[in-house]
């Protein structure tokens, strides 16, 4: 048993920590969000220089390799700084999935570009009516000659505004919620028939809705076997959840630090408000919630690549429940203890609250994962 960081992880932590301290302050972030892309391409280039865009990509494709636990170290720092660049969509959902399920040709074409920082990816899986049910896929893929024609709609595709390529799920057989029959296709942004409606999310990240109208892709665009993509997608999303858990821990830690600082400096009734026991106890509970969340984020990072899908899903869902509950408690308490300033746009606290709230809504909220955990346990 050893909870200390590896040498690589310590280096990643130091590198990313220095980067966000120097270049990703709250004011820097405001400018980044207000820019034309809603994120910073120069910042992304710096990620690439530091090797971060090669994390989890095999060395033969110019990457650095690395586990989900390594990625989690970066996620935690990015959570502390509320980084908005589409790192998780591109590296975890995109490159991670291509690295596992993509053909040799797909990997050789795309992964070196991702590692070099010149290519963004996104997983287009959720649909207007799917909510958090992974098997719910209405978008269909019809064979046409040697090609497939993709038709349907994809909803709230994270990083979808920036993506150069999408991993699009579509049915090659089966009814809407059937486990079998889902396939994954690599679709370039420029494909005729693909309409992208990009938008900002309320937490400063970005997403897009896609409409596919007979989008033609060759058979070589298929990832893995036709009809067998659901386990690949489920694994990709479990890994993304592990990333989000670590990111949330970073955000919770930063928000607790802000709140504690406020308790010590804000004066009312002639004393720092941190002198009031009712606030002290609430702050202690926020620290306990953070530590419980940290424990479960560690578990999620550790289990994200467990080959036993059921055991993996159970651990990931348990972690997502804990992160959802801790994040909600910490976010709401922080705003309350700050008073009015906590809900102003100019103060960082509210932005952490928003990010934590949206993390709970991403890839299944606490209720969804509580049910998934309970089903796996029974």
């Amino acid at each position, binding site marked *: 048993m050893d909870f200390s960081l590896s040498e690589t992880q310590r280096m990643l932590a130091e590198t990313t920590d220095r980067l966000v301290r120097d270049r990703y302050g709250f004011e820097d972030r405001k400018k980044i969000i207000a820019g034309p892309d809603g994120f910073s391409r120069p910042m992304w280039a710096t990620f690439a220089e530091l090797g971060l865009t090669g994390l989890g990509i095999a060395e033969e494709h110019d990457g650095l390799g690395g586990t989900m636990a390594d990625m989690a170290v970066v996620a935690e720092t990015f959570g502390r700084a509320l980084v908005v660049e589409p790192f998780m969509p591109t590296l975890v959902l995109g490159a991670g999935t291509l690295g596992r399920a993509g053909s040799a040709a797909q990997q050789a074409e795309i992964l070196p570009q991702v590692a070099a920082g010149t290519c963004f990816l996104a997983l287009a899986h959720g649909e207007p009516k799917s909510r958090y049910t992974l098997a719910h896929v209405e978008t269909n893929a019809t064979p046409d000659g040697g090609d497939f024609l993709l038709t349907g709609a994809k909803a709230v595709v994270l990083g979808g505004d920036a993506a150069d390529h999408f991993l699009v799920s579509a049915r090659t057989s089966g009814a809407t919620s059937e486990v079998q029959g889902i396939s994954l296709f690599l679709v370039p942004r420029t494909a005729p028939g693909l309409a992208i409606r990009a938008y900002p999310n309320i937490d400063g990240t970005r997403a897009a809705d896609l409409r596919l109208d007979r989008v033609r892709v060759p058979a070589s665009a298929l990832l893995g076997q036709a009809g067998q993509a659901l386990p690949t997608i489920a694994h990709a999303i479990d890994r993304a959840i592990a990333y989000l858990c670590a990111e949330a821990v970073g955000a919770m830690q930063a928000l607790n630090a802000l709140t504690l600082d406020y308790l010590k400096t804000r004066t009312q009734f002639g004393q720092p408000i941190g002198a009031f*026991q009712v606030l002290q106890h609430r702050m202690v509970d926020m620290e306990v919630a953070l530590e419980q*969340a940290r424990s479960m984020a560690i578990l999620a990072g*550790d289990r994200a690549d467990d080959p036993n899908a059921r055991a993996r899903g159970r651990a990931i869902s348990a972690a997502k429940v804990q992160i959802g509950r801790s994040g909600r408690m910490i976010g709401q308490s922080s705003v309350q203890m700050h008073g009015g300033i906590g809900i102003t746009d100019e103060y960082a606290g509210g932005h952490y609250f928003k990010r934590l709230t949206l993390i709970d809504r991403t890839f299944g909220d606490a209720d969804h994962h509580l049910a998934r955990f309970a089903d796996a*346990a029974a």
Partner: protein
Amino acid sequence: MDLTYSDEERAFADEVRAFVQAELDPAVRDRVLNHKRLSKEDYLGWHRKLHAKGWVAPNWPTAYGGCSWNAVNRFIHEEVLAEEGAPPIVAFSINMIGPVLIAFGSDAQKHYYLPRILSGKDWWCQGFSEPGSGSDLASLRTKAVLDGDHWVVTGQKTWTTLAQHANLIFCLVRTDASVKKQEGISMLLIDMNSPGITVRPIITIDGEHEVNEVFFDDVRVPKDNIVGEPGKGWTYAKFLLSHERSGIARVGQAKRELRRLKEIAKAELVDGVPLIETRSFREKIAAVEIELMALELTNLRMIAAEKSGQAPGAEANMLKIKGSEVQQSLTELMMEAVGPYALPFDPDALEPGWNGEPIGPDYAAPLAGTYFNFRKVSIYGGSNEIQRNILSKSLLGL
């Protein structure tokens, strides 16, 4: 990062498990698992078996007959014993006064008392709380005045757990009323058979006799029965309360009770469907199970830090808060699981060897009582509010 036990640690856990399974009296195990009453002999019989194996004092140095185990092995030992249904070790002797005597006792005290603790010859109880001194423990008023070769002790202690079994009590007493309240306290070792001591049972809301009031009426205690120096009792008490806290979350016990909860929820039917298959109850179990998973990992993080040489700090107070909440949730869900059979009160059914006709399912009788009894865990050992006060100062600097 490695969240698994090493091969040696796993082998050790297997060894402990095999030992319990071979040595624990099945009747005693049955009483622990089913929340039945434990007799003094149930505790002591098991204590002697652990002693014979050399495992009764994992936290003591080997020089004093302990095991000198590191934090991880202590945790494994405690967890496996609890999971397998062993009665708890008498904590007041092994985890409280033992380490205090080892650290601060005279050679004569160590020589006399420590072997008697190990063998189970002595049963210690704790004389800290008083009717007027609960969370504000340092305000205690039981006083000891030196008269020749004796301290003369007058006052009252309360919430004294299992004093009815004890032949010795370690007491915090006021020996100097003229100084700051923490500085006028000393720790005395007192024979429970001394003239002037009266023990009166306190019956708790589950109908059980677990705690007592202890009255001291001019009790004469040999002068040498003081621990360390006069006026240092508060320091020793803080040492005692902070010592051996790696097991404070009671993860092993909670895992055992979770297993029990699931068994009961499988046996109970709602319109012919097992309770555990109804969505709302299943999710309640899942929620507490996830809390317990997080608690276990937080606990393991703490003992890993302790093993690598860091002193247990704020984490122990957190574990007390979370651990007690999890234990209370489990007892509440078990009571909830039996529905209307939470109502009947049948204390005879808890007695060892009782052979009567149970009211309702045989597992139902103790559950409501356990729920009521377990409200204690967020009160004793420094209430959860006191834990938050401590964390507020030590961790947050407020």
